[in-house]
């Protein structure tokens, strides 16, 4: 578990150092250790004054900066040749190592910036969910293929897609549901469809939405139109499709008539 502390706008001591180097206009290839150490410590100090919990990484960096700085102030000890080299930590080498680390981190930070742009443009592209191909006879095989298994990661991807899709779709459902479509308006819609086609329309074709509210309103609209003799419904035989057509002389049907408002 990552602990809760995380100072501010910086991603860590390296990020903070890069920031200081940039604002102080320091040459990253020739870091003045004393100056950067002072600035760094001052920053940390202020963070603590603000009673902010400073993550351990920052303190560790502070410690190593101070170590490098103090060693730089001391004269290099004369070591006998036979002593192993690593007894003395050359502050120049430490400074070099820090520089390498900063440069390396900076590369990835830049790469992250670039990816952020990619992410931004990708997020602006919306698309539709795949159509249901089952109507074209695509059946998921009843037997599980052993060779090509879906993986957990396929599943996580599917969930991500689902979220993306919901972003584009959810309100559609809620809007239709909450709209409480007025019957009068739906009557107009039905009449205008019949007028446009100029021929009988299949009953089922008048119900393009699976939304329940929509179905009920359309059905009520049809009943009302039948009652007012605006439309006629015909059925050739039991259980065959019902054909809906306009009655004669309904051209003057005024959908705005008060009677049609509910």
């Amino acid at each position, binding site marked *: 578990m990552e602990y809760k502390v995380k*100072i*501010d*706008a910086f991603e860590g001591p390296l990020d903070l150092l890069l*920031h*200081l180097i940039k*604002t*102080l206009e320091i040459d990253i290839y020739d870091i003045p250790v004393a*100056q950067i150490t002072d*600035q760094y410590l001052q*920053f940390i100090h*202020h963070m603590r004054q603000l009673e902010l919990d400073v993550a351990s990484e920052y303190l560790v960096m502070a410690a190593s900066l101070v170590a490098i700085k103090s060693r730089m102030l001391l004269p290099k000890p004369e070591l006998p040749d036979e002593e192993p080299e690593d007894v003395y930590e050359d502050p120049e080498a430490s400074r070099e190592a820090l520089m390498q680390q900063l440069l390396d981190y900076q590369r990835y930070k830049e790469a992250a910036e670039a990816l952020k742009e990619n992410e931004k443009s990708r997020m602006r592209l*919306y*698309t*539709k*969910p795949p159509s*249901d*191909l*089952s109507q*074209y*006879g*695509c059946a*998921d*095989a*009843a037997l*599980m293929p052993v060779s*090509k*298994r*879906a*993986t*957990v990661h*396929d*599943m*996580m*991807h*599917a*969930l*991500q*897609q*689902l*979220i993306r899709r*919901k972003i584009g*779709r*959810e309100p*559609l*459902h809620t*809007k*239709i549901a909450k*709209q409480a479509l007025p019957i009068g308006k*739906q009557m107009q*819609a*039905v009449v*205008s*469809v019949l007028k446009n086609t100029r021929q009988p329309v299949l009953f089922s*074709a*008048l*119900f*393009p*939405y*699976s939304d329940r509210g929509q179905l009920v309103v*359309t059905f009520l609209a049809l009943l009302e139109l039948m009652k007012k003799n605006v439309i006629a419904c015909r059925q050739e035989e039991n259980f065959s499709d019902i054909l809906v057509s306009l009655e004669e002389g309904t051209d003057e049907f005024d959908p705005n008539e008060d009677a049609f408002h509910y």
Partner: protein
Amino acid sequence: MSLTPTKMRSIIEGLLYLTGEEGLLLDQIAKVFPDAPEPSIREILEKMKRDYEENEASGLMIVEIAGGWRLVTKPFMATYAEQFAAIPKMTPLSQASLETVAIIAYRQPISRMEIEEVRGVKSEKALHTLMAKGLIKEVGRAEGIGRPILYGITPVFLDYFGLRSLEDLPPLSEAVKDPGERPDEVDLLYNRYKETVKEWSDDNAEQATGEAK
């Protein structure tokens, strides 16, 4: 600022594509163009419909039923869709099945209706497929009206996805748990705090540069 008919056409086309087979009501389209009169929107739709119909290089067309407008494939596409459907898929489980089984795995026991709420689409076929493959099973019935069947995953699920136990499932991102969630006050507070710190450090750096000179 009012939009040109060309711009409006492009926006309507985009929206029709996004809503796919479900389509859009004229009202819904009109809401996107609060300044445009409804007849002008209808005109654009009618024109677009004719254009698609006449364009031999397009496999799509626009249909209008009961006030709803939809972008769909032309009838001749059925043959090719069949051919395409017959091609073995990249993933052995369809997107629909994967989504459904994932929701069940994370939220079991769960009813079909709850699954459909999360997915926003009918999920009967996916449930059928998953049952047939033995990845899910009925685990009981919920209390309440209709006592809907509850689904859960099976040991075959674990085996199929190579998991030792359900605890091996990757952590779910917040969005799936509650897709509508907004950043809460904590985030807002945090952002404000970040800015303060940033300002402070910029000031300080400036000062330091000044001193160095």
